């Protein structure tokens, strides 16, 4: 798919997403927080964070006093998986927003994840497998370490290493991560873990030796692609996960050329699976807004992958160090 076509699709799909703004925005009322976080990622990657400050302030307002978020904005109990997704959206937007309320919320979420980690390094969430759940706070801490300031790093680094070690210990001999309870097929779990957790430590100093795990994970994902370019029996969600994971892995392991044929087939399949407006869970089904946000995110990451700056796609995960400081000076000494 050429870049002009990708740009056209991004424009038309983003226009569709904005026509259904009341269905995903906290500024319009109570929402499903996973959908909110998915939409906020599109806002961020489209470069619209600064003009969308009310969306971020509404996300701050929905945060619980313990620093987490509920699965629904009206739910009182915090849940780890969605909290990590929301925290990631805030910390990454803060590089642009530089807003004191957003910064306070990021600190509260750091406290939430430091307090909630189990002694063996995992985080738990009753709706997700432990490996998948753990990958998200680790991903959040990747970004905290990549974007944060030196003075805050000790406690976060220790928790991050424990989480990463838990993930590395969970990898199977064949390179995949399997969750016997939630994901025996391993497709989504492997894609999440490689992009959310393991791969990022390659970019951070003092990381664990993750390159062999990443290479095995990349091989596992490539080997499990179906002939038509999809993964997991034409599963749009899992194909998007594997595609994004491969975009990041290929760049960080300098395996672009090796992964290019698989990526091109996957992207063609994803585009062909689209409805007139939005993406379904499986080809031919009705549009799902969360999947539509995922589809937009894939196309935006493909655009970044094809830019001449090799780090541009890595920035779409927030893992590239440098740039503007995320935290204001007053908060530097807290952790």
């Amino acid at each position: 798919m050429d870049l002009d076509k990708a740009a056209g699709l991004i424009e038309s799909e983003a226009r569709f997403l904005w026509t259904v703004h009341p269905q995903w925005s906290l500024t319009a009322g109570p929402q499903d927080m996973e959908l909110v976080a998915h939409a906020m990622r599109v806002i961020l990657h489209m470069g619209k964070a600064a003009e969308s400050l009310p969306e971020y302030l509404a996300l701050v307002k929905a945060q619980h006093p313990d620093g987490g978020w509920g699965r629904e904005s009206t739910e009182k109990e915090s849940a780890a998986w969605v909290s990590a997704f929301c925290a990631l959206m805030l910390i990454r937007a803060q590089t642009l927003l530089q807003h004191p309320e957003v910064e306070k919320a990021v600190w509260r979420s750091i406290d939430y994840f430091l307090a909630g980690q189990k002694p063996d390094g995992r985080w738990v969430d009753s709706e997700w497998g432990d490996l998948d759940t753990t990958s998200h706070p680790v991903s959040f801490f990747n970004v905290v370490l990549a974007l944060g300031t030196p003075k805050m790093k000790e406690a976060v680094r220790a928790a991050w290493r424990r989480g990463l070690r838990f993930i590395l210990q969970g990898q199977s001999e064949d390179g995949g991560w399997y969750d016997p309870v939630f994901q025996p097929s391993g497709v989504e779990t492997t894609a999440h873990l490689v992009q959310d957790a393991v791969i990022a430590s390659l970019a951070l100093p003092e990381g664990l030796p993750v390159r062999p795990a990443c290479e095995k994970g990349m091989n596992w994902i490539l080997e499990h692609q179906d002939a038509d370019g999809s993964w997991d029996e034409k599963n749009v969600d899992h194909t998007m996960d594997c595609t994004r994971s491969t975009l990041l892995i290929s760049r960080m392991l300098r395996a672009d050329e090796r992964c290019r044929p698989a990526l091109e087939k996957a992207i063609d399949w994803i585009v062909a699976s689209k409805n007139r407006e939005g993406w379904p869970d499986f080809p031919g089904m009705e549009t799902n807004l969360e999947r539509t946000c995922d589809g937009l995110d894939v196309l935006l990451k493909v655009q970044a992958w094809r830019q001449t700056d090799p780090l541009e796609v890595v920035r779409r995960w927030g893992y590239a160090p440098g740039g503007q400081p995320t935290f204001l000076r007053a908060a530097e000494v807290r952790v």
Partner: protein
Amino acid sequence: MEVESLKPGESGLVVADGQEVALFNVEGRLYAIGNRCPHRSGPLFRGRIETVPDPETGSATTAVRCPIHGWLFELATGRCLTRPRAGVPVYSVTCQDGELCVGK
């Protein structure tokens, strides 16, 4: 839906009284449950059938795994095996004049 169109090992989707119902033929036995997973609305008729241990009794039971995030639902009862207290509705399914009939 015609009985003949749902062969052993296959699944299908029908709408009954405005509700999506997932149909499964497991070795000749028919099951009908609500199609949408209560987690993220994954379409259960696209899920894989598995024989798994019942977490309460340990005995083997037949379940469908949601294709999106892997929640398991016992076909006979609609009970979620991966998250206590969650579940999907169960419907009766009968065969009349070669047609599958779904009811409460």
